[in-house]
């Protein structure tokens, strides 16, 4: 009798783990996996972007700053620094999520993410948060590295933070879409080379948008990178080329749309499940 009760008790102890509305443990595991993935190769994922950004800054400052050029009322190098920082952050957010999904697909270990009891939104959130984390960490590292050489000041820190998070989120989500769509490394290299890099180069990082011919100013306003970089730079130097309120509202709206698309794709298993 006593023995039966003991067995009963044991049986209830080994019952399946109940998961509430949110699988917090699973979500945290996926997120920390994403973060450890890039920290494991931090020379490539943190150091290399920092060195490249500083080199770009040095080169452009030497090539263009020698003429004591000013843009938007500040030195050229002060104008350039936040834009370069933002470019690096966005590129890294994109690279993190796209490579994570694509490598998992190519190597076949995507099943390890699809099999655990994670809802589609949890999977999307975990991977996207990893990309955002990498973008922000790269940004912070570049920021501190630049402080060694430049008098970097923050005019509106909250504005800079808002644009940084939104921009990283947008590129992390785009990276997920790219990673889901791509079937080979070539595909994602093409997206990076022919879409992401041109958009970020032609965004007003290196020049004030009023340098453009009138027709092109209108085109530049359709480039989301323009709003990211303009708003982020406003956070540093307190001057914007366009209206930063448009960007501050537009970016979260676009993010919301991208989130629904990503969620939809993961739910249907597009190019993820056989």
């Amino acid at each position, binding site marked *: 009798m006593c023995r039966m009760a003991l067995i009963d008790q044991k049986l209830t102890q080994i019952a399946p783990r109940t998961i509430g509305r949110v699988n917090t443990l699973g979500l945290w595991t996926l997120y920390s996996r994403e973060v450890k993935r890039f920290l494991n*190769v931090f*020379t*490539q994922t943190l*150091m*290399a972007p920092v*060195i*490249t950004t500083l*080199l*770009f800054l*040095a*080169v*452009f400052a*030497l*090539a*263009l700053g*020698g*003429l004591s050029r000013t843009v938007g009322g500040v030195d050229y190098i002060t104008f350039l620094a936040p834009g370069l920082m933002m470019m690096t952050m966005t590129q890294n957010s994109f690279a993190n999520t796209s490579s994570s999904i694509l490598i998992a697909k190519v190597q076949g270990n995507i099943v390890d993410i699809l099999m655990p009891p994670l809802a589609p939104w949890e999977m999307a959130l975990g991977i996207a948060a990893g990309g955002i984390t990498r973008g922000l960490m790269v940004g912070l590292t570049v920021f501190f590295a630049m402080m060694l050489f430049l008098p970097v000041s923050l005019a509106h820190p909250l504005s800079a933070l808002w644009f940084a998070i939104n921009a990283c989120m947008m590129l992390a989500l785009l990276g997920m879409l790219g990673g889901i769509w791509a079937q080979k490394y*070539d595909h994602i*290299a*093409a997206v990076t*080379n*022919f879409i992401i*890099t*041109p958009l970020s*180069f*032609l965004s007003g*990082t*290196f*020049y004030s948008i009023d*340098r*453009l011919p009138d027709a092109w100013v209108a085109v530049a306003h359709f480039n989301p990178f323009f709003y990211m970089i303009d708003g982020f730079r406003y956070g540093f130097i307190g001057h914007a080329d366009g209206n930063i309120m448009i960007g501050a509202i537009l970016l979260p709206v676009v993010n919301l749309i991208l989130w629904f698309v990503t969620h939809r794709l993961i739910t249907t298993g597009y190019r993820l499940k056989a």
Partner: protein
Amino acid sequence: MTPDQSNNVVPGEGVRIIAFLRIWTLFYRRGVIRFMRFWVESLLGPMVSTMLFMTVFTLALGPSDEMAPGLSALQFIAPGLAVFVLSQTAFQNVCFMLIIDKQEGVITDVLMAPLSPIELLFGYSLAGVANALLVALLLLGAMTVFTGPMLYSFAATAFFGISAALLFSMIGVLVGLWSDKWDQFSLVDNFLVLPLGLLSGTFFTLDRIPESWQWLFEANPMFWIISGFRYGITGYGSVEDLIWQGGTLVCLILVMVVCGWLLFKRGYKIKA
């Protein structure tokens, strides 16, 4: 009585140390066809990013700036940028071929074939040279949109262009053989090749640099390559400097060829 050594030659292998056909097979059938198949990344990718650079510089500089006497900023930058992309393409192409062959294990197919170490070295590196020269030619053509047609000395342009491609292909062989993983390749790419290229006088004249730092630039092979190539395209620079820079470059290439040959001979990281 000693047996006649020449009778021991395997039929069909031939007695020459370097056989054109063998290099050609590795170079063309494997190397060139491979990068032409991936022309979107190997040709179009470098072109698009370089043209973006030119556009950005045009917009940031304004049309009237002069970088050196008689040369607009863009005319000054264009040749340097072209030869930098050429060097990087040569390096990356050879590294990619070697690392992929090693990782997928197909390097044994190449090692099993009757190829001598020197043939292996040139088979791999010349494919990189071909890819690099093709990119540079396309780029120089496309850049005339910004700069107008320019060519001062064909000989100097060709000499420095080919030297750059050879040097960086050989570096690519060394790094490709040494790398077990992509990490090692990107370490060299990010922390050696890119800094050498960016801090080389592609984008500015040396008088922009404090005098105490100028030696650092003058010791950079990329600086010699870019000065020479720019002289060939625009005629800017002094001929005396070019002679010793070109001479040193040739010596450097020879040292690299010997290193690469030794590594292939030893089978460094490719033979058990």
